[in-house]
């Protein structure tokens, strides 16, 4: 596959790279090393800049006012946007704007008015609640939260766990079992407002990722109006599948982005640090780590761009999206690990971003569909049949 950049792509990438170097990285010198938010005045200033550049709301589809950037260019931008300390989970601290939850684009007009548009305007925040204490990889079987019809409403009862951003959200997309006989075809998706009586955030779940944390939720006879059913009753899993596969591509690109920076740091350090009378970069053991990094980076980068190119060309890309997600998350974890090794003790400190990337990349192998599940998707696509 030919990935010769067009003149326009080159210009865009140069602009984004400069933005990260000149606007984002200097601010990080004063922020806590685990921070994921900018002080409000900086945020406002930088949002104004990305709007001026025409890059705000990158992931918003064109028909909703987004800039209409193709996925290959978006992927190339994601490689750049992640190249700073908070870059994995908060690329450029969100100053390029968000797209909202993929499922909201499948909402009806009334729901779009109440949820999607306020999210795009930055007035409302949502969460996505699929995982339960009984499991997240196989939600079709694991979901125990129920929704029972009561007149025009539904009564939702149950628990969710590991739900990112739920404590600060205005509403959530919540999957509940509406027909216990139908398995996968008995799940419905609901829009639940966090001020509906019976909804409760029980506690925060502390993980390796200290910001953008997740929470444990309780639904105690929450009355949800029928007009808040998202999509069709019992078709909760049918909505937004394409968009979810699509999301895996920039997700993979973020992993590659921080790993590219880690490799750059490792090379610079190896060329500057002397032991036993010579530079680390002259030692074969260190050179091989850098070579292995390069192989992981090029593999992940190529596979991610391939998935993006297929999606742009309107070809099926589910297999490619699954492969790039798992190759990028695993490869990037190895790259950061080796780069820490080359940095010795400094690699372990909060003075450098490597330790944060190391922790957060570990989550990338479980988030957005664990890598074992990506392998199941690929197996199903290449071997055929269904897997249990």
């Amino acid at each position, binding site marked *: 596959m030919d990935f010769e950049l067009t003149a326009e792509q080159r210009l865009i990438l140069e602009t984004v790279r400069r933005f990260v170097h000149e606007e984002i990285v200097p601010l990080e010198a004063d922020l*806590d090393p685990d921070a994921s938010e900018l002080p409000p005045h900086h945020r406002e200033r930088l949002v104004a800049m990305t709007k001026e550049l025409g890059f705000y709301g990158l992931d918003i589809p064109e028909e909703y006012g987004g800039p209409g950037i193709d996925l290959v260019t978006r992927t190339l931008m994601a490689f750049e946007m992640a190249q700073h300390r908070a870059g994995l989970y908060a690329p450029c601290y969100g100053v390029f704007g968000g797209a909202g939850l993929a499922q909201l684009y499948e909402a009806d007009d009334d729901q779009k008015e109440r949820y999607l548009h306020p999210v795009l305007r930055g007035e409302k925040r949502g969460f996505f609640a699929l995982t339960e204490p009984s499991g997240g990889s196989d939600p079709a079987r694991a979901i125990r939260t129920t929704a029972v019809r009561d007149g025009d409403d539904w009564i939702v009862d149950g628990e969710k766990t590991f739900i990112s951003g739920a404590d*600060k959200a205005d509403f959530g997309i919540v999957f509940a079992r509406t027909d216990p006989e139908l398995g996968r075809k008995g799940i419905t998706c609901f829009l639940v407002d966090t001020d509906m009586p019976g909804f409760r955030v029980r506690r925060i779940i*502390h993980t390796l990722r200290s910001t953008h*944390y997740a*929470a444990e939720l309780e639904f105690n006879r929450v009355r949800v109006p029928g007009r808040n059913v998202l999509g069709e009753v019992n078709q909760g899993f049918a909505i937004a599948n394409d968009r979810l596969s699509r999301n895996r591509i920039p997700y993979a690109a973020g992993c590659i982005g921080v790993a590219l920076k880690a490799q750059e740091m490792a090379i610079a350090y190896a060329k500057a640090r002397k032991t036993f009378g010579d530079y680390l970069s002259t030692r074969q053991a260190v050179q091989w780590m850098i070579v292995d990094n390069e192989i992981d980076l090029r593999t992940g980068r190529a596979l991610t761009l391939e998935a993006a190119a297929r999606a742009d060309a309107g070809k099926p890309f589910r297999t490619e999206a699954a492969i790039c997600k798992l190759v990028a998350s695993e490869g990037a974890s190895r790259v950061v690990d080796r780069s820490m090794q080359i940095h010795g003790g400094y690699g372990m400190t909060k003075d450098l971003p490597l330790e944060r990337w190391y922790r957060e990349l570990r989550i990338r192998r479980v988030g957005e569909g664990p890598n074992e599940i990506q392998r199941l998707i690929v197996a199903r696509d290449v071997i055929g049949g269904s897997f249990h």
Partner: protein
Amino acid sequence: MTGVRLGKPWRDLDDAGIAALPGQLGVFQIGDAEGVVLELGFAGGRSRFGLRSAIAETAAKHERAARFRYEVTMQYWSRFEELLAVYLADHGELPVGNADRGDRRIGRIAAPGR
């Protein structure tokens, strides 16, 4: 699983107490003599001596500061956010030292029992 509230015993805020503090990262509360929380804080990755310097610096901002309590944790951000949210749920307002949060949202956590 730790309780959602900071349940550690209060300690007197004096030089010996501060000097004995660990240099690790974590979260803390500064209280007055009656145990009213004046400020919730964290010792993050940029603190010079972890909890020891962060507690001393925060206490110095409050004339009424008389006690402190802390918890060592590497997840100081999420724990700090959790403590703010639970404090707000329990008291209806934030401690005086945390009142100015700009437009940053405080999470809503309805933790059981006090």
